[in-house]
């Protein structure tokens, strides 16, 4: 089985009924898709499959042979964020961060199919994504900001203060 993940081709050994979530996290080592409810209910494992947001936990590997997968790791990097990543950063739309990868991928999918998304569109697109920290207001504002192009995606990566450890967490949106 093969997949194109964030632009790179992978030959995979996982059995065909393995969920894409487990393939990404356990075989490929991409940790941004989170293993939340693992029954399609929380949204945090959402990735793009051929450009469309889908639940990785509900998708068996065998059904998507050859597909192009995009995770948060494929959206941008700390010095060149995607519009959605930059908007989440500017609006402080993450707290614990567990739901953030799914929110970002759903928002990225929404803006791809509806660049002029309205507030109702955003609410509909994020309806299946659960956040237990922020209360959604900042998340919705961030997606609307990205839709309006009101984001700076090229900001330099913040430097650590003197004495502050410089920690980069793989898969972290910030």
């Amino acid at each position: 089985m093969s997949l194109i993940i964030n632009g790179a081709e992978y030959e995979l050994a996982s059995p065909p009924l393995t969920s894409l979530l487990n393939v990404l996290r356990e075989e490929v080592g991409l940790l941004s898709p989170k293993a939340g409810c693992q029954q399609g209910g929380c949204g945090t494992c959402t990735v793009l499959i051929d450009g469309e947001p889908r639940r990785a936990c509900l998708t068996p590997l065998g059904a998507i042979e050859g597909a192009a997968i995009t995770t948060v790791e494929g959206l941008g990097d700390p010095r060149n964020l995607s519009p959605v990543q930059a908007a989440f950063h500017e609006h402080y739309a993450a707290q614990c961060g567990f739901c953030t990868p799914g929110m970002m991928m759903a928002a990225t999918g929404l803006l791809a199919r509806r660049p002029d998304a309205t507030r109702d569109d955003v609410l509909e697109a994020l309806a299946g994504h659960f956040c237990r920290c922020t209360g959604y207001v900042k998340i919705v504002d961030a997606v609307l900001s990205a839709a309006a192009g009101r984001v700076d995606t090229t900001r330099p990566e913040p430097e650590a203060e003197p004495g502050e450890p410089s920690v980069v967490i793989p898969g972290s949106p910030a």
Partner: protein
Amino acid sequence: MSVAPLAEPEVLVPASEEEAIAAFGDGTGVTVLGGGTILMPELAAGRLKPEKTILLARAGLDEWRDEGGTTRIGAAVSVGALVDAPEPLASAARHVADYEVRSQGTLGGNLCAGPGRGFPRGDLQAPLIALDAYVRSAGAGGERTEPVERFLSTSPGNRLVVQVEFETRDRLGGWAALERPHAHSYTALSVAATISPSGSDLRVACSGAGPYAVRLRSVEQGGLDGDPGEALRDVHLTDDALASAWYRERMLPVLVGRVLSQLKEAG
């Protein structure tokens, strides 16, 4: 002592309808995975350990054709795509889960969906009965085409749904449901109905009042001005995880009344 290796479960990915039907055979020991929204959590939790699984993703069952006055929708068409279907199927599809889950769940899976752990599923079953839809399925005894209502009453889990079809007629549609507790809950109770523009041939069905959707013939006999409470003659209500029988008994006539009002206003 020698230890025999565990047999690898068989997973087939048919490339055509014919291959899918051949792989399904009489259905014995076969698990069919369409969109995965119901089965993948069961697999992840280890509650389902299939010996032979058919993945329908590449079987070409995702075609939707309107031809010769008949709408034919493949079993693997997503629930999300059905938001463009005739009413009341479109309204019911629009209210299933969220964008991503709608995009993965399939018509065939929703039609076959029996009761879950303590609650009914299959939100699209009632609209399909209201549309007088027929199911083409394969399995023991070969292929057959039958009304959705009959299909649901004869072990739909043992059949491979290939296609759903209904006449592309100019009909008015109505749909009403209890609000779901959250995006991913199944509808505790919903009512769907259609009627011809001339006001004849009223068809009414409800989902959530039993393991599978049922047709409300008593309501149909009363017509648009009939007593919505007649619906209770056609159902056997029970308590489950989503709602009590007491609650459903009071809400079913309300929903029937709303749908009949929708049809009257549309006419």
